[in-house]
């Protein structure tokens, strides 16, 4: 993985992540043996498990959305991260909202990540609020070889910020990913990305190659660390009065029973 050393990552992973949890990933789909899998991507990052943060016992669930222009590599990114495979002809599974990745932080603690892909089909539009709702973190992706996709990241960021916020009203942590860094002809230079990242309050940015599997796990780790830090600093909303509609509920006779 020599390429990785010269990939830019702002802020540098080591600088801001020192105090966050180290974690260990369980790549449960590691051995899928996808025939299309590229050679360089099969390596998995394994971080040494740190001592258990004993107080946390529940299994956290985080919703991470992945957005950006069509064909920048969102679905491939999700597939690479969750299944560690790259398939040029991958089509999203029909009828599924998100991919699930379980990340093991320690012996007793795991995190479930719901990776909401754009469903491939909504590529010509803004997302419905349903897609954004209650998300904890966001990946905005563009294609280094497609200037337009870079320009549009600004719109995507504004769209996210206008449609969802954390419970305390702050913006959702967003990471900016410059995909397809394995390709030779770039239309976007690093200074431009750097400026955009600063101007629009991304938590960080990095170049990635989903095809080669470069910085996919690292960038997600970085994002999830920030998500978890923020989650920990918030009051947990306990009893919500919001209703989810399930089952058939009681019969309607309660009124009639009153005085009989």
């Amino acid at each position, binding site marked *: 993985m020599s390429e990785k050393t010269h990939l830019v990552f702002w802020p540098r992973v080591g600088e801001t992540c020192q105090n966050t949890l180290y974690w260990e990933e369980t790549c449960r789909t590691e051995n899928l043996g996808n025939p299309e899998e590229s050679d360089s991507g099969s390596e998995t990052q394994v971080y040494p498990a740190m001592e258990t943060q004993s107080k946390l016992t529940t299994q956290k669930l985080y919703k991470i959305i992945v957005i950006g222009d*069509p064909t920048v590599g969102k679905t491939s990114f999700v597939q690479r991260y969750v299944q560690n495979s790259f398939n040029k002809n991958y089509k999203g599974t029909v009828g599924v909202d998100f991919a699930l990745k379980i990340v093991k932080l320690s012996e007793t603690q795991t995190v479930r990540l719901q990776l909401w892909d754009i469903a491939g089909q909504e590529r010509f539009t803004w997302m*419905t609020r349903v897609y954004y709702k209650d998300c904890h973190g966001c990946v905005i992706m563009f294609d280094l070889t497609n200037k337009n996709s870079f320009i549009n990241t600004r719109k995507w960021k504004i769209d996210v910020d206008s449609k969802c916020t954390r419970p305390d009203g702050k913006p959702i942590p967003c990471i900016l990913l410059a995909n397809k860094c394995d390709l030779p002809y770039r239309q976007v230079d690093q200074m431009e990305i750097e400026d955009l990242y600063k101007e629009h309050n991304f938590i960080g940015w990095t170049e990635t190659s989903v095809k080669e599997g470069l910085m996919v796990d690292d960038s997600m780790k970085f994002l999830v660390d920030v998500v978890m830090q923020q989650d920990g600093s918030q009051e947990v909303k306990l009893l919500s009065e919001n209703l989810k509609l399930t089952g058939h509920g009681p019969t*309607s006779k309660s009124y009639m029973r009153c005085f009989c």
Partner: protein
Amino acid sequence: MEDDLPSEYDVIVVGTGMTESIVAAAASRIGKRVLHLDSNEYYGGLWASFNFEGIQKWIEDCHHPANPQEENVMSAVANDGEMLIKAGNQFSTISNIEEKWYIVEELADYQEGLLFSRNTQTDGGEIKGDVDNTKKEEDYETEKHEEEESEAGCGKDIVPHAPTQQWSQAKLKKEYRKFNLDLAPKLLFARGSLVELLISSNIARYAEFRSVTRVLTWLDGRLESVPCSRADVFATRHVTVVEKRMLMKLLTACMEYENSSKEFEGFEDKPFLEYLKSKKLTPNLLHYVLYAIAMATGTTPCMEGVARTQKFLNSLGRYGNTPFLWPMYGSGEIPQCFCRLCAVFGGLYHLKRAAEAVIVSDGEDSNLTCHAIVSGGRRLNTSHLVLAVGYAPPQFLQTAPNGGVSRGIFITDRSILPADKESLTLLQFPSADGCGEPVTVIEVGPSTNACPPGMYVVHMTCKQKITAREDLQTVVQKLLHTEFSDGAMIRTNTDTQSTQTASPNKTHSEDSEGQEGNETEDKGKSDPGSDLKPQVLWSLFFNCPETSDCDLTANVPTNVFLCSGPDVDLDFEHAVKQAKEIFSKMYQDSEFLPRAPDPEEIVLEGEESTPGPVFEGDSSEAKADENKSELGDEEEKGADDGGAE
């Protein structure tokens, strides 16, 4: 974004309103290739919900509708024997838009900190934003308004117990994201067709609701709670034990009328009111049943009144205290839930893109058949075409819509009837004579994400008679304070100075005869049972055509289906019914929105069989829910679910 849209579809749907979205989801769900377009850059069309910035833009767009594209190159995409019909008409045009502010643009520095500072200015400017100058706040004209009203409004007595926030336009706009303002606010009956559909299709997982916490009515010039649940009936002091018996007997009769049709003998052709009178109900009970439970009027036929009463009672006790649910983030969420399902099952979405023309040819029986649409200059072939009324070529409609809906949206600084807890309120405001169309009032607060903390949003809806503002004027005056507020003054209740300062509990009893009609005269008593009417901070009136009663099938090509816009009704029933009809015409033998699997039910190759997550942030809560759906119809669970109050 580049245009690499495929050119062949089973169904093209134009418009992302309620009916269109349900149809799109249903077609996609059974594997049809669906393309869903909308010329707007937001979902929902006339059913949308906007944040504050969004609604400002919507108002602006209504004033300056985009010019339809030139049809120069279009003919090139039609084949021999085919005709191009230009799409789009004026039948969805919003009219009589009146936007108005009631607060200053900016608070002076000293006002920010001084909550109870006394007003020294007497000439609070009334800011008028009429049709032509809603664009920029600089454009607003300021207008002096009557000195005496301002005096009254300023209030000599400073009431320290009403510490509301001081709002300015700038302050409100800063919070623009926290608003969700509905163009077509609608409730769901807990056992209505939409709730059943959301559950049976599993689209419910995309949405969250809150229960309407109270049903109010306007009786004897004040707002009163209508007892909905058993607990309410027991708690209320307005109803005596004798009355409770009468009420229960009557409601039981309505519920069981199929079995005991004798009960209504002789009333079949008479108004519901006649029947109620025959039961010798006390006036206030009669009022509750007629206006709040049946949501009827003095002229509603008896059996319709009975059916309406049944509908209300049937939905009781499922979720929460009242029969109604309100979608979190507003009604505009619901179409989007269906759109998401459509997309997840492969439907293709493209906003900011409409159909410029429809390509048809003569088919069998001299009926026209639609082959394709022209969109973005391209020909997109389809087997079926579903159009929101507003996108249909005018000749597809037999008649132009003749009715309209009058809408009012008000951002206020407190509830119309303050309570210990934030309430979600439904109020059917009867017309002055008790026989005309009522005004539906829905008040939602910050917990539904309708607005930032410290505010409420009041929606008013009724059938259009003149203009929205004129149609709603009476109700606005009774419920809301619409004088200009300069942000510094604390209002006292000028109304109650001349009348009783009765607490809401100590009110009229059986002696309140003839309440119908007297609400118009008694100016002094017109205070809604609380200390202060809410101050309106901002308001918007508009009229929207009512297309639900148009004949949408007479003049369309055989494979084209039109969807009406929002109707005046309280709920989504019409849209659900229409969508089902359209779907069954397209795919007669297919199931309508069969249950979509939960993610955990889909086992991907190589995945472990660990149970997947449910759609909640809180995993413990999610588990509880999981149990619920597994356990199915258990009454107790459902009761817990709803009994969040």
